[in-house]
């Protein structure tokens, strides 16, 4: 939810932030786009879809891509048509209020054949059978879903069926200003909770300011929850497990950093969102996603930064994975063609082309090398793909996220204590999430 709530605010406040935060993929002007992939040089390893033999006609492709990303998508559609001339793709980007548009279109039975589904809403959609299960297609075309990072497949799996293939993704990672840390006497980025606390204390002692800009939002709190070994739902999404010691531990830790003046919400620092605080030099550390980098490039191109994995908690490493899928509308009249398109857009060739801009991390593990070659600094983001957890709140999760955010904001305002905050979050989970 923060990704979307941040993005709405930054969208109105700064188009760059909005573009970066909303759409996790696409090209940004002035990016160091590499010539590594071009429409003219299709990969030798390209495998035609078998379904394509019986697929033809027109499909509608509905997305929230911004102007820049639309250029990339249009080129990709051109590449797609090079392979599959029988299928016409009608590209329909939605300028604003994507979710509302998709929902009402689905209600009217008129949704695009293929559209993006954010992981936050995936379970709401999947549990209501409005997406097409693609397992048969995946089997027929011999797609190895193991090529995608695991949490991205988990995000679109509901009751053992798969409802989409990931477009791209990002975990949260630490982005920091090495100069500030070095002059504060920090030798290397901390790897555990105690280390993080020490580091933030040192930064505070040396600069007099908070070290970490972090907003009291549930989808930022969730990284501490994962690191403490907790979650909202159990692995097969059959039970709410938020009422745990891990929740208390994570809450005590994060709130403790705040009450000790070691972290601060970005708004208190005078920033739109934590990435903005970092770009303005208001905080030397932020825990943000890959969408940080295009924003930095536009707003603080000379800023030096380094990247690290998030510090591990008592239960080890943990970070949330945010992603979008290509999913097929259950009411699609041309599911075969829609699948051929999804297959292509998630293929090595297409993802390689789409992800040279660095706006998002490719969902395919086999593009790791290319990504690292282009953006060697961001290796920790890829490393966290091994343990990242798909952010899944279950059906009704949006309401839960809203309620949990309100509980955290009340705690931050000193209106309730951590115990009451936890209780509010647990109550919200029990009433809002329908499993």
């Amino acid at each position, binding site marked *: 939810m923060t990704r979307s709530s941040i993005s709405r*605010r930054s969208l*109105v406040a700064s188009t760059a932030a909005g573009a970066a935060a909303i759409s996790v993929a696409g090209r940004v002007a002035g990016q160091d786009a590499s010539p590594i992939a071009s429409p003219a040089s299709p990969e030798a390893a390209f495998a035609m879809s078998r379904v394509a033999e019986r697929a033809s006609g027109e499909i509608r492709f509905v997305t929230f891509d911004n102007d820049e990303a639309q250029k990339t998508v249009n080129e990709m559609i051109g590449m797609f048509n090079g392979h599959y001339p029988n299928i016409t793709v009608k590209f329909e980007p939605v300028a604003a209020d994507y979710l509302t548009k998709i*929902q009402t279109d689905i209600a009217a039975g008129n949704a695009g054949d293929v559209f993006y589904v954010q992981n936050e809403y995936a379970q*709401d959609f999947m549990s209501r059978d409005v997406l097409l299960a693609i397992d048969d297609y995946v089997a027929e075309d011999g797609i190895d879903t193991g090529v995608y990072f695991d949490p991205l497949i988990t995000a679109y799996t509901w009751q053992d069926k798969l409802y989409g293939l990931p477009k791209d993704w990002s975990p949260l990672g630490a982005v920091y200003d090495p100069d500030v840390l070095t002059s504060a006497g920090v030798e290397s980025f901390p790897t555990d909770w105690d280390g993080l606390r020490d580091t933030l204390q040192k930064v505070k002692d040396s600069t007099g300011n908070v070290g970490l800009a972090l907003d009291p939002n549930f989808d930022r709190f969730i990284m501490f929850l994962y690191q403490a070994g907790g979650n909202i739902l159990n692995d097969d999404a059959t039970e709410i497990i938020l009422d745990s010691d891990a929740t208390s531990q994570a809450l005590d830790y994060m709130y403790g950093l705040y009450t000790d003046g070691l972290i601060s*919400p970005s708004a208190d620092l*005078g920033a739109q969102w934590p990435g903005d605080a970092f770009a303005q030099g208001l905080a030397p550390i932020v825990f943000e996603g890959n969408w940080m980098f295009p924003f930095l490039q536009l707003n603080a191109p000379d800023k030096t930064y380094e990247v690290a994995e998030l510090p591990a908690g008592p239960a080890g490493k943990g970070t949330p994975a945010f992603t979008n899928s290509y999913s097929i509308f259950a009411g699609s009249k041309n599911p075969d063609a829609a699948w051929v398109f999804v297959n292509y857009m998630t293929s090595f060739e297409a993802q390689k082309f789409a992800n040279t801009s660095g706006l998002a991390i490719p969902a395919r593990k086999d593009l790791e090398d290319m990504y690292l070659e282009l953006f060697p600094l961001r290796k920790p983001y890829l490393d966290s793909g091994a343990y990242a957890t798909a952010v899944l709140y279950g059906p009704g999760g949006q*309401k839960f996220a*809203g309620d949990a955010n*309100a509980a955290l904001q009340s705690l*931050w305002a000193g209106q309730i204590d951590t115990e009451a905050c936890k209780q509010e979050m647990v109550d919200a989970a029990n009433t809002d999430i329908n499993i």
Partner: protein
Amino acid sequence: MAFRKTTSPTAREDMISGYLFIAPALIVLTLFVFWPIVQIIWLSFHEWSVITPEKPWVGLENYRNLTKTRDFPIALRNTVWLSVGVVPIQTLIGLFLAVIANQKIRGRGFFRMAFYFPSISSTVVISVIFLWMYQQNGLINFILRKVGLPTPMPPWMSNPNGVIAMALKPLGVDHLNPWLAGPSVALLSIMMMIIWTSVGGTMVIFLAGLQGLSQDVYEAAALDGATATQQFWQITVPLLKPIIFFVVTLGLIGTFQVFDQIFVMSQGAPAKTTLTLGYLVYQEGFTNFAMGYASAIAIALFLIILAIYFVQRSVLRTDQ
């Protein structure tokens, strides 16, 4: 007097042409106003996730949930505070501005336009600009610091603390009932913006009313030795009563329906203290997949506005 069916050919022609004349408006209204209202009433007795066609009948369940769920009372509280804060102030300032703009002063046309300008500007644009101004290092804090006044922390739009609770805290009053804690600083910020936006519109309505007042009454009062203040309270205000009634009614309806500003500026945050009924309807319907419940809130909102209207009409009753 008995009703008689009009069968004469001219009367029938009149009737047909009458309906033809109103047909375009009637069709549009039916399609986009009457039909949705019927649909909302119908939906409020059903459960509908928007994205699936099933709409099972749930009877009064959605209405029972109004009091059972937490958000509706919170939104009602915020909306009441918003209305209580905005309507009297925008009415008073609007009247004040109208009286001034009605004087024969230089540059009157300019001031009228300047005050009216925010009312005809896009709320979204205004909201975005205010969002900037309310930032920690924004214009408003800048001015407050310049003149040596304290600035709220957390900054305006992210401060969920009630203003009355904050004012009473130094006096040792703690843990006020949320209804008494007052609007949060964030809600207050939005209220100030709404007042700023709407006083121009109020002013124009009052101006029209003022210009309809006969100068004779004022001349007679002046001859009797009434001061300007006396004239204002004894003549202007009583004569403007119907206009005041109109402005207050519009203000109440407007504040109970506040949506755009919330949608752009806060989405109900922080800690739901800017969650208004209008925004709650949208949130339940379109992000929480509960269109039936959202419809029930919309109906409740309508009934609340209607009830307030009747109360206010009996208070501000004009003797006409």
